[in-house]
């Protein structure tokens, strides 16, 4: 169907061009321009398909098709200018307003990119949440911000979306709480120096701390007396990995469950991302070991004799 229309348009165009060329008696420049336009119109499609045949990359194809269409539109506007200058001016002013109204998107994007880079709201490698996604910032350019989510999937956000929205920063250089020095420690010059050094580091913003908050719900069948004991077991195991002991606080209870906020603190954001799921697994296995390993021993003896098992808990 489309081909038929294309053929019809081409035939009409050829006839009009022939008429203009031989019988119209218009100005020479107008005749030439109409001829050029007709030729470009016919050459356009084969050229674009040729480009698609030669180049595999979308980038080159798009460039070539934009260039050809640009040339065609320049000549079309030229014809319009020769026919009627007023109409040409009117059309051009109309186009400028209509298009520039939308160009604010691109300009806005680049401007927010500049602001993001200058204001240093966050750096590459920080753990942030924006637009309902959490992840580590991989790239900040003039046009976009690339964030890697917790399961390793990349997310590309235009700068204008990031700059205009709420940013939750899990990584930051401020608000680091230090244990104050004891009096004996203060008198010892060694400790004093170390303290000064860390203090200096904070002032020059070399230390950044990542504090990630994970909200969890624990079922009501858990004995509140034993809960802390179980949690501390896991916390102690993860202290060497994160560098700092994870913490927790109770949030609220609802419908027989208790909601707990876990604070995972580390100096390196990627450690949090890498080990958070292992941490959760250990928590689940520790808290609900009765339910999870229900019937496991029998199953193991029945089906899994050929696999080596060892009673070993936790990561290595």
């Amino acid at each position, binding site marked *: 169907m489309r081909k038929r229309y294309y053929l019809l348009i081409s035939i009409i165009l050829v006839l009009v061009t022939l008429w203009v060329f031989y019988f119209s008696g218009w100005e020479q420049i107008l005749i030439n321009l109409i001829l050029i336009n007709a030729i470009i119109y016919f050459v356009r499609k084969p050229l674009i398909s040729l480009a698609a045949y030669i180049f595999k990359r979308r980038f080159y194809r798009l460039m070539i098709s934009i260039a050809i269409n640009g040339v065609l539109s320049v000549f079309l506007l030229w014809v319009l200018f020769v026919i009627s200058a007023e109409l040409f001016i009117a059309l051009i002013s109309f186009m400028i307003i209509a298009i520039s109204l*939308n160009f604010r998107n691109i300009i806005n994007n680049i401007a927010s990119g500049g602001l993001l880079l200058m204001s240093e709201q966050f750096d590459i490698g920080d753990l942030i949440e924006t637009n309902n996604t959490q992840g580590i910032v991989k790239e900040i350019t003039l046009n976009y911000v690339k964030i890697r989510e917790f399961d390793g999937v990349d997310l590309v*956000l235009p700068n204008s979306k990031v700059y205009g929205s709420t940013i939750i920063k899990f990584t930051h250089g401020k608000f680091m709480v230090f244990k104050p020095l004891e009096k004996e420690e203060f008198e010892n010059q060694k400790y004093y120096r170390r303290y000064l050094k860390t203090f200096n580091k904070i002032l020059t913003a070399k230390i950044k701390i990542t504090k990630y908050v994970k909200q*969890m719900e624990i079922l009501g069948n858990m004995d509140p007396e034993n809960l802390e004991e179980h949690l501390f077991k896991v916390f102690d195991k993860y202290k060497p990995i994160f560098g700092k002991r994870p913490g927790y606080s109770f949030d609220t209870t609802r419908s027989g469950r208790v909601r707990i906020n876990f604070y995972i603190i580390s100096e390196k954001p990627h450690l949090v*991302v890498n080990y958070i799921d292992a941490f959760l697994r250990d928590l689940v296995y520790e808290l609900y070991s009765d339910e999870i390993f229900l019937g496991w021993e029998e*199953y193991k003896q029945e089906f899994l004799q050929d696999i080596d098992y060892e009673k070993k808990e*936790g990561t290595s």
Partner: protein
Amino acid sequence: MTIFRTDLEALIYVIIIGISLYLVNRIISYSIDRIKKFLPAKKNKINFVIRLISIIVFIYFLIEGFPSFTAIPAEYTVIVTGAISTALAFATSEIFSNFISGILIWIVDPFDIGDIVKIKDHKGLIKSITLTKVIIETFDRIIVEISNSDILASTVLNYTLKLKNIENYYRFKRQIQSPQQIGNARLNIDVFDKKLRKKEDNELRALHKLVLESEDSVIHTFTFSMHFPYERFRIKVDKTDKLCDKYTEIFDFKPKFHIFNFYSDILVKFRILTLNSNKLLNYQADFAIDIYKIILSK
């Protein structure tokens, strides 16, 4: 140079022309309706074109017909036409917004054809990208067309990894591994560790070989989550692990899974890696069904 001599004559003629155009429109659409040869879509198109032409003709007569319009000083006409064209530009600027967004998407370049993406809750495979819209084939085998301005307004998740320097195995491994694999978040922790690590390494090496053999160094990942109950979770983990072994041949690489949250039940996230995105479209649903069978089996 006007068509009619006086304003009154012009007014009468314009009214006559307007009514007659309306009548002609009616007659043509009625007669087209009667002809059974045309398809409904074609009829609609013809009607639309005729209506558009008659509106243009009417406006032409309205502007050119009245002699008193020419008596208005040139400055006023310039101002009025300028204002009208600005208003029209404002009104129609939405049409151009898709093109401009298309250019912006082209600059930002968040995805390519064949990538697996999630845009506005539509997960699927990108079929084509044009200056005005992006076409996605979803996992339900439905074609979704999303306009470019809509894409800019929503977040785009790209599940496809574009690998660089794949000749080196260790660089390849660094790009492929998910944070959970690095952090050793596997669920069968009581299985002997060294043996398992060696097995995982061999799997990765096999995948590396496959990628080196394939033409373009692109790997599609896909993640989805399932809720597991607490009871007999360890047994279900083992069964799921065996299922993943079974799907290794189909997806080129063994699907991995890990806990990522828990409340009334345990949330487990599955991660599939494959070289061919069509495999995901074809087999992901089967995989999900098999997992469901394991979860709800006694």
